[in-house]
């Protein structure tokens, strides 16, 4: 069976693997509805439950999972590349509503 990675929210620019994927293996990325939205080239090992970019992400761009910002790219990330602490930093969550521009 072809390995899968799922996009949890339609706004996400990353997907999460449902099993370990090795470099060169065929991979299908599916939307929340189950449609195949991408068959990326996988150039490195991506462990189970880890993330990969589903579009090219520029340095400084938001990483979006669950439809929300989970961090910021610290370097450019190619579509299909593994995403974790080596190329993403915390957006340093706002510690108050004022800082977040909400209150």
């Amino acid at each position: 069976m072809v390995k899968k990675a799922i996009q949890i929210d339609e706004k996400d620019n990353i997907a999460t693997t449902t099993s370990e994927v090795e470099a060169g293996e065929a991979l299908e990325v599916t939307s929340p509805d189950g449609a195949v939205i991408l068959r990326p080239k996988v150039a490195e090992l991506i462990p189970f439950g880890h993330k990969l970019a589903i579009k090219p992400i520029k340095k400084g761009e938001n990483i979006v999972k669950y439809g929300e910002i989970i961090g910021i790219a610290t370097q450019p990330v190619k579509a299909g590349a593994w995403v974790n602490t080596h190329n993403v930093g915390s957006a340093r969550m706002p510690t108050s509503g004022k800082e977040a521009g909400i209150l």
Partner: protein
Amino acid sequence: MGYGRPDKSVGVRNHLLVLAPIDCSFEPAKKIAAQVDGAVAVTQYHGCGADPVIVNNLVGTALNPNVAAVLVLGLGCETLTVDMVADGVRPSGKPVETLVLQQEGGTLKTQEKALRILQRWAQEVAEYRPEAFPVSKLTLAVECGGSDATSGLAANPAVGVACDKLIDEGGTVIFSEPQEMIGTQHILARRAVNKKVAADVYRMIDEDEARLKARGVDSRWMSAGNIDGGLTTIEEKSLGAIRKGGTRPIQGVLQDNWDRFDRPTKSGLWLQDGTGWDVPSVTHMVAAGAQVVCFTSGQGSTTGHAIAPVIKITGNPVTYQQMEDNMDINAGTILDGSESLNSVGDRIYKSIIETANGKKTKAEALGYRDYIVFCRNRAAEHLLGHC
């Protein structure tokens, strides 16, 4: 389908509750309940002081629409009296009686009276016929426990899809566990319906962080195991938990303190300022009125509840195989690629409706009656200005 109550709420079960406000009367309460069809006994284990948060939980349980009638059974010398509970229930118009062991003259005399009351109620309740009611009468509680890497990936997002659907149909959803919201304050606050609710979100999570800090726990810490498991930031970790409540706007934060116990006042998504400990958290949300519970678990769980059906969902296909006796729904089909997230969400929604219509969950069929009332640390609450 459900049972209309005098206060216009709708129960999806018809439990007869034998409520011991303190553990001193719990053994007699259990023996009495065991003799009557449909009766269930509950208590709390924090002593007989009249701690308002405990009284709120007990009264809330009795007021839950899944309870048809309530017998409050006390010992007699406790500070937390039977009337403190019964007085909270009476305005609802629900049948409520009290018995006190020291006044009745011991177990056997009390038991005879108790059994006569419960026997009558059991016969009356058997005559109730369920009626059709709209989804707007339904409140769902969502909880997660025994999480693993599949929780944030499959089970929680799928339950979130079901929650969104329930809310879009006019229903109400509650989720709690503020510890698991840490790092997502700004995200939850942005979903608040107004600035007051946004401020309440910050206050709830900040206070829970302060409670953890007082115990020497740094709540923003990410372990090496978290990162190896694929979680990059604390925001991502917490989002995996809060996604089980779906994505709809947050109507309010339900508080439970020395002077108040909030219940949802309109349909939609509500957060509860409660605990991260599973069974007490479920008990707390059911006390706020939830008639049905969805419980996600990566590693598997046996949890049920005294008065509310608990639907258990796992995103881990191996867990489902190993714990099929206990887990109601396999969301692990998302992982093997055989089913989409939205399709599993639809299946969970259907199961919520079927359960509300009377279908028994696995925990119900096994007779599991989990019930734990949680208690706040009074010293910590004093420092936070709550008492």
